[in-house]
């Protein structure tokens, strides 16, 4: 397999995630999109690591995964907070502040 193949898969995942972020009205739905985007980066890293024969990519991935988890933790807490005050997590409705 060429590196390009892996990269294309990652690109596809990235763009799926992007699509999700752009179209979801549900806050958790958006988070799912974000996860996909992050995952795409990880695929890239592993693929590069493999093809370059170099360890840093894998280390990088480990850090990235951990960071994503941390983000999700805080993000979900924020979603909860949003939910508590609004009674829903529809992002279109959470637009009190604008202009």
């Amino acid at each position, binding site marked *: 397999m060429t590196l390009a193949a892996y990269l294309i898969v990652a690109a596809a995942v990235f763009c799926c995630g*992007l699509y999700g*972020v*752009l*179209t*979801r*009205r549900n806050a958790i739905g*958006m988070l799912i999109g974000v996860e996909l985007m992050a995952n795409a980066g990880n695929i890239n890293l592993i693929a590069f690591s493999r093809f370059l024969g170099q360890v840093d990519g894998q280390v990088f991935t480990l850090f990235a995964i951990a960071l994503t988890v941390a983000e999700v933790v805080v993000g979900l807490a924020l979603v909860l907070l949003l939910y508590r005050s609004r009674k829903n997590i529809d*992002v*279109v409705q*959470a*637009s*009190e*502040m*604008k*202009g």
Partner: protein
Amino acid sequence: MSTSLLILLTLFTPVGAALTLGLLPNFRRAGRPAEYLSVAAAFVSLIAATVLFIRQQLVSDATPLLDTHIRWLSHNGKSLVEVGATIDGISAPMLLVVALVAFCVQLYSMGYLAGESGDARGRYFTYQSLFIFAMEAMVVAPNAFQVFMGWELVGMCSYLLIGHYYQKPSAARASLKAFWVTKFADMGLLFGLLVLFTVGGSFGWDSTTVTSLGSSGATAVAALFLLAVVGKSAQFPLHIWLPDAMEGPTPVSALLHAATMVAAGVYLIVRTYPIFAAAPDVLTVMAYLGAFTAFFAACVAMVQTDIKKLLAYSTCSQLGYMVAALGTGSLMGGYFHLSTHACFKALLFLAAGSFIHAVHSNEMENMGGLWAKMKLSAILFIIGSLALAGLPGLSGFFSKEVILEELSHSGHALPFVACMLTAGMTAFYMTKACLLAIFGPPSEGARHAHESPKTMLLPMGILAALSLVAGFGGTMLAQMYGVEYAFHFGTTGIIATALGFAGIGLALFAYLPSRRANNPFGALTSVGSFIRYGAVDRTAAFAYRNGLCKIGAAIGWFDRYVVDGVMNLTGWLPLVAAQRLRRIQTGVVTDYVYGVIVGLIVLIAMGTVFK
């Protein structure tokens, strides 16, 4: 006493008085002390001027008695403009005339203005003193630049003094009009100075300057100076301010608008005559213009009912004589007439002022029968009138003869004829004035009239004496000017005198009290008023209202709503843009993500990635 000190005394006592009065408001407002100070200053000035005149007269050759100047403006470390004083044959007589008439008028004013508030009198005498200084400074100017400064300053004093009764709308208007018209003409002098300096290389009128000016340069300078003369000396068509200027107190009319200030134009020509001499075309124009003004103004004077207006037009007319004379190249004619005219016209105004003071009206109808009440004033007025009319032996006769003689030799036939006719008309309207004002049917005002106080009569007497005898000073003046002069009573003189007597006779015929009912010249009145109010004044007023003010309004509007409008628009555009643009901040986080993604896509699409 040294000459320098004398000239300092001449010039700076009046301005010192003015300054003192200006800086000490309380002293000024006291009235009477201010008058004394001002008159004393004028007296000192007169004495000093007289001494200077005598000394100059004693100098046998044409060398100036005094020629001193100091740097006034620096330019590149050197001198650009200088101020100082030149006493020579030209300036010394004029200086004396100015100082003399000024002193007489000052003295007279003490009586004339006695009824006014101390404040008004203080102001009046301050301005008068300032005027004396300005006029004298102009007269002794060593260069055209100082002439210009004095010229402008006397214009300023004229503006201030015409506006003495500033509460009167007509006076306020008249002073503005006088200033605007003369200031308009003064642009010519300013341009002339620029040409003189840049082409001629100095502000002087010496032969070097005239040579480097060349023919065209001299013509340009002379023509531009002439414009200023037309304004200041009330020549057609810029004479329009002079009749209105009679709104000022009568002594002001006597000093400024008869004897001295209006003669400044003539003096300018006399002073810078070397330049004019190099511009024959301009001289020709002057001859025609002066003669036309003389004739035209005399016509208008014939139909006046207001004694001051009559005298004002008469002044115009006489100034026309002088300009015409200078146009023929006769320095003597113009300058001699200037001097004699100053005496008798000032006398006439003062006498008229005496009447006005008595009856509180300018209309000749309201003065009828003053003979009975104020004989002295009346006699003095008649002396002045006769001098003006050119009764042989009186001063006006001599000077006018010179002019007519010169005109007859000049080859300008039309101006000559016009001036001859004017001589007759002059005699006519002056006689008319005497008949109406002094011998007319007793009027309401004359019933309560009293003879004027001595302070008024004394100066009139001095001037009357001069009017009687000044004509015999011609030889002396000519010697000072450095020109040839020998009086001879030739054909021209005889015809002119005859015309004068004809005028007197005609006036007697028309205006003798007994014949008043069927005035054969009634028709002239309407023609005169058409000339007076119909043409020049109307044109000027129209040009002001519909020309200048409309342009001003258009520019004002343009500035406010177009130029500034564009500035406002520039401020308005970002605000409107912002109001539109803020809608992209929808508040929905998805749209914010779009912002990021669109930004990303745009940055990638810029193409640097793929290069």
